């Protein structure tokens, strides 16, 4: 998903003795979820996050293919269905084609849906791209009884065609050879449109002076189809001819009742159908395969619910019980409690004679005993188990099914089912999830999703600590889940009412259920945990240092004292304000502070639940805050923070009032 975690990692390929052909650049394009990133990984040896749902890649990634002592630059792009862009990802991918002038474009296609895929092939040919077609996922097509005659495609389209199964490496050698050896000349436009449209195209072509990186025919077609970005470009680059071009398009448009994009697409479809008839044979398969039955069950409005609950339960057992309790207990009590902490204390006190400086490293708030211990003993096992589980879930293709089940609920809060992906990812890491909100279509959806992530979705580190904190009481856990759920829906509902904008539309391709590949799950977990740690560990250490400095100067005590007022209002003991101070750095850090208070017996019952809820509603962490600034801008980020912190205390106050009013004993 989205997160190109290792763009900066040094490449293992590209030794000095290779002839590096810096001039030659190859771009991979294709619809979402056809395996571009796997092909890219195969070609370059670099790992890009791969998942089983559309829209995993939101940024472009560059790498290098080295083979037989030659090397070329390879660019992976986000998924695009068509040159006519709808989403931001599609615009990003199109810009790569228009700005990079690649020497070769490899269209990676999902063979089982070849009929749909060829629309993009046709458009790339129209754009004058030196094109090659990679029929990927050939195994799935074969399983469905499809037989493809690549020769027919090759001849009729005039381009090289290769069949691959990138996940198994099938056909990859042939692809590599073709990429390195073949010099492709752009073949002409594959089809002619009705006379009126062809005339308009010719007229427009004549009036375009500047260069666009794609053929003028493609520019003309995009103008006829009313592509806003291309219109803007023409307005900027052809100030004199613009009015004329506009008139040509208007004239053509008036000749048809339907929008030209519809007419043009139908013409392409007609061309593709004749091609398919000759190139594809459908042998068919009998009966409904088990995979298909399972897929239907997972989407069923009734059967889908227990399946969902079952997955949540397994997730709880693995992350909440195994990760957050068994593994945390072991690391915390055995590894740190019995070995590292006493040893560190002894070593530090023998080296450093001054108590003040000793405190920087060890004792109650030291870098090792607080910062590193939190990071390694509490956060690491939880985050790792969560990302293992999340990677498995996303690779099976379950998330789009969940999106489809939950769409109606999400519509009420101004989102659509698609937002389920950033939300679920938010339970892993809100910073990553905030970045992924850019895949949502409208600004309104992006803002609402960002707000809800910052407010009501606790990340895995925090969920883990919370589960450990509440492990003794199902009732307390129930109250926590209920309050967070209510806040999520209530704030979402209000935000949707307050923010005007287009109603979101839900449409999504549901990928087949696939067996997760262990190697992919592990690599993905590794890159995510690594990314997470790079973000987290410096922050933890920084927090330890700041707390240490604050304590010497007395500032720490002043802030803690100040914070004890709001914490007092929501019915908490003064010690809790320390945890709240940590909470401003990272809310899981705050929750971990509560963990210490609970262990020491200073916090329990209703105040414990109230403090957990309040901290859980804080902004997640400094990293998430800076990501919000990056994605949504300063004003929005500061505005959200100004709402979230006081709101968290208000909710804490209300929960305290209600629980005490009802005489709840926990």
């Amino acid at each position, binding site marked *: 998903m989205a997160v190109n975690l290792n763009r900066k990692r040094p490449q293992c390929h590209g030794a000095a003795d290779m002839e590096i052909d810096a001039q030659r650049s190859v771009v991979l394009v294709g619809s979402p979820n056809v395996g571009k990133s796997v092909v890219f990984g195969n070609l370059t040896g670099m790992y890009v996050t791969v998942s089983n749902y559309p829209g995993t890649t939101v940024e472009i990634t560059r790498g290098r293919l080295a083979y037989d002592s030659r090397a070329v630059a390879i660019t992976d792009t986000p998924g695009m*269905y*068509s040159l*006519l862009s*709808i989403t931001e990802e599609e615009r990003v991918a199109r810009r790569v084609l228009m700005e990079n002038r690649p020497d070769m474009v490899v269209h990676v296609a*999902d063979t*089982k*849906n070849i*009929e*749909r895929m060829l*629309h993009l092939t046709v458009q790339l040919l129209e754009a004058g791209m030196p094109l090659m077609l990679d029929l990927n996922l050939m195994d*799935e*097509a074969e399983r*469905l009884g*499809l037989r493809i005659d690549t020769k027919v495609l090759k001849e009729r389209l005039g381009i090289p065609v290769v069949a691959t199964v990138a996940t198994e490496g099938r056909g990859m050698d042939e692809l590599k050879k073709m990429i390195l050896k073949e010099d492709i000349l752009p073949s002409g436009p594959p089809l002619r449109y009705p006379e009126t449209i062809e005339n308009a195209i010719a007229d427009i072509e004549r009036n375009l002076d500047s260069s666009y990186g794609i053929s003028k025919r493609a520019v003309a077609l995009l103008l006829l189809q*009313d592509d806003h970005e291309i219109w803007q470009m023409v307005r900027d680059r052809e100030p004199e001819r613009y009015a004329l071009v506009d008139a040509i398009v208007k004239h053509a448009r008036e000749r048809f*009742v*339907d*929008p030209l*994009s*519809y007419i043009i*697409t*139908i013409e392409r*479809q007609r061309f593709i*159908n004749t091609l398919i008839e000759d190139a594809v044979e459908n042998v068919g398969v009998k009966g409904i395969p088990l995979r298909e039955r399972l*897929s*239907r069950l997972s*989407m*069923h*409005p009734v059967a889908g619910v227990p399946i969902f609950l079952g997955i949540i339960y397994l997730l709880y057992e693995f992350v909440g019980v195994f990760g957050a309790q068994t593994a945390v207990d072991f690391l915390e009590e055995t590894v740190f409690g019995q070995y590292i902490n006493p040893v560190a204390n002894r070593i530090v006190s023998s080296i450093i004679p001054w108590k003040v400086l000793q405190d920087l490293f060890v004792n109650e708030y030291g870098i090792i005993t607080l910062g590193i211990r939190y990071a390694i003993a509490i956060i690491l096992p939880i985050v790792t188990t969560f990302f293992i589980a999340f990677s498995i879930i996303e690779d099976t293709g379950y998330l*789009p099914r969940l*999106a*489809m*089940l*939950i*769409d*109606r609920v999400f*519509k009420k809060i101004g989102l*659509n*089912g698609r937002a389920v992906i950033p939300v679920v990812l938010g339970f892993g890491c809100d910073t990553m999830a905030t970045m992924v909100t850019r895949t949502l279509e409208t600004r309104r959806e992006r803002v609402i999703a960002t707000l809800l992530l910052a407010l009501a979705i606790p990340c895995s580190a925090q969920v883990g600590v919370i589960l450990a904190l509440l492990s003794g009481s199902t009732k307390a856990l129930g109250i926590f889940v209920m309050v967070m759920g209510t806040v999520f829906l209530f704030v979402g509902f209000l935000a949707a009412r307050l923010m005007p904008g*287009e*109603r979101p*539309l*839900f*449409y*999504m*391709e*549901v*990928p*087949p259920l696939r067996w997760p590949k262990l190697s992919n799950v592990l690599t993905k977990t590794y890159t995510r945990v690594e990314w997470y740690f790079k973000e987290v560990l410096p922050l933890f250490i920084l927090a330890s240092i700041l707390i240490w400095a604050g304590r010497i100067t007395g500032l720490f005590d002043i802030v803690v004292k100040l914070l004890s007022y709001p914490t007092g209002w929501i019915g908490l003991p003064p010690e809790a304000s320390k945890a709240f101070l940590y909470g401003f750095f990272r809310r899981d850090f705050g929750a971990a502070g509560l963990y210490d208070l609970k262990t020491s017996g200073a916090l329990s019952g209703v105040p414990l639940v109230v403090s957990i809820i309040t901290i859980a509603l804080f902004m997640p962490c400094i990293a998430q805050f800076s990501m919000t600034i990056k994605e949504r801008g300063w004003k929005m980020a500061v505005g959200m923070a100004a709402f979230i912190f006081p709101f968290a205390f208000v909710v804490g106050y209300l929960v305290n009032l209600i629980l005490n009013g009802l005489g709840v004993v926990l």
Partner: protein
Amino acid sequence: MRASDRAEEILEQLWILTKEQNKDPVTVEDLSIDRADPELNELAELRYIKLLGDRIELTSRGLKEAEAAIRRHRLAERLVMDVFDLKRSLMEEKACQFEHLLRKEVEESICTLLGHPKVCPHKRPIPPGRCCMKALKHPKSIVSSLAEMEGGEKVAVAYLVTRDNRKLQKLMSMGILPGVKIDIIQTFPSYVFRIGHSVVAVDREMAEDVFVRRESAQN
């Protein structure tokens, strides 16, 4: 013999006045025509109307004929509005030209195509034809919106509503195009269907813009 276009329009007006506005008696002034109009003579000769001084009365034959003309007119409006998707101002004009072209056989298939509509775009009732009565026994029309379908049905896309470009682009990008076959898997909580070898989920708003033909209904 058929009445001329102009005569047919007078007939329709007469029908609206007598049947929908319950005007009795209807006079030449109500129709704002001249007593000497050749069309009045034509209608009288066809024995569709009786002329009693300034009063005009529909005969039972005329009543039937007028009802059929009204039906054609309003169906034409629906056709122009729903399928050709013309603006209201244009609709009036085009519908008037169309109605005279609709003959018995075409009329029935148009009515079926439109799903036996009960009212015209102005919300006035369309008199039911024979095909509508038949459809009552087999209540499913041949072409209707994907949003009206049920799980398990096999359909083919007839056309897309092209009014909203945002939706149209998305539908087309998923390969939902005229002629494409669709197997509907379920319709709640979202519409899920198989198209080619992929499965697509959309909400009701998107499904409403896809008009499909039932495969079984063709056989």
